[in-house]
């Protein structure tokens, strides 16, 4: 019978090395998937997944086991994602003035082509953060809304509403012909 995460954590606390590796192997793909879907590139996702586990093991003493270890990892990972997205937007904003001037038609042309290639991806990127988080947790990680609420530190109803708004917004963008920037 497979050991539970709690049992592995107890063994890790007792200094058993294999428990550490087993805990990571058990959840590494899930956390990487979450990071990739939020950040959309391998380098950032790999870095963020690593940092999620580092933080989890550094602060494992503060894990009160009121939720599953997986849920706790999601909480840490999602917080790191939020900060990464915020930092990224700050960086982008700061660099705008450094961009070389190009004929406006070139920019629009390139943007239009890019968006044609991945209209859904573009629509997802434009979702408000909370809606996007709820969408990712629900669609790709099959979390119940109560669990999404626990991860996002909000009520089940709020998690549900965020998810519904996200799906409806995507539906409008994809089939309603809503203008994309």
């Amino acid at each position, binding site marked *: 019978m497979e050991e539970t995460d709690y049992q592995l954590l107890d063994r890790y606390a007792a200094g058993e090395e294999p428990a*550490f*590796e087993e805990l*990571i*192997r058990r959840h*590494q*793909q899930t956390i*990487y*998937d979450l990071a*990739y*879907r939020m950040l959309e590139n*391998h380098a950032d996702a*790999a870095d963020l*997944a*690593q*940092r999620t*586990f*580092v*933080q989890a*093991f*550094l*602060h494992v003493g*503060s894990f009160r086991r009121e939720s599953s270890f997986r849920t706790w990892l999601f909480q*840490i990972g999602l*917080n*790191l994602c*939020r*900060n990464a997205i915020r*930092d990224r937007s700050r960086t982008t904003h700061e660099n705008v003035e450094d961009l070389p001037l190009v004929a406006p038609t070139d920019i629009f042309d390139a943007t239009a082509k890019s968006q044609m290639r991945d209209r*859904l*991806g573009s629509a*997802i990127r434009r979702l408000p953060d909370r809606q996007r988080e709820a*969408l990712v947790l629900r*669609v790709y990680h099959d979390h119940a*809304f109560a669990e999404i609420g626990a991860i996002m530190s909000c009520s089940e109803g709020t998690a*549900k509403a965020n*998810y*519904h708004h996200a*799906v*409806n917004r*995507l*539906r409008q963008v*994809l*089939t309603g012909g809503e203008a994309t920037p």
Partner: protein
Amino acid sequence: MTCNDIQNMTVPYLELDGDPDHLREVTAHLEFCLACRSEMEAVRQVLVRLKQRRVPDPGERFWREFPKTVRAGILRERMAPGTAMLQDGRSSGRLWAGRAWSSGWSWALAASVVILIIGGLLFGDQLLHRPGNNPLQTRTVLTGEPGAGGQGLDWGDFVEADWDSTWDEDDSDTALARMAAQLDPQALDRLLTDI
């Protein structure tokens, strides 16, 4: 149930998330309402397309190495506790920035003390209106011994003392250090408090 109600029920309906009676009502409505049926199908398509989006697999080697990179990250953080990330995900960079900021203030304070000492040397006479030199103070400076009673010079005496020989003999850093060593500790404390 109106078409508006159905619009608000599309996602819960497709997720089978809701009161079974309500879901049955939606089904009944869809059987005769073409507009709502096509709306429902559009939302279903969005969910299907979302599900189809795949994350590229970074490869076997990445997964094999991953626990090692985590271990290395933990060691790195433990070696430099000041750089630890907070559990809520706030970047440790802010902690570092805070420390650098504090450190910057320490340097600024030290620089201010030096500037005040130099300023006192240059303009002390005018500021304190104390004419002349005290031979005792001059001797103290030249011999490197603290002032009378081992207390060092108070601020007024300090700025009036003749430091020329100190400047002549030492480089500026050493001279300042020697001068500071002559200052009464209490006077120095008061000076720092004022700053």
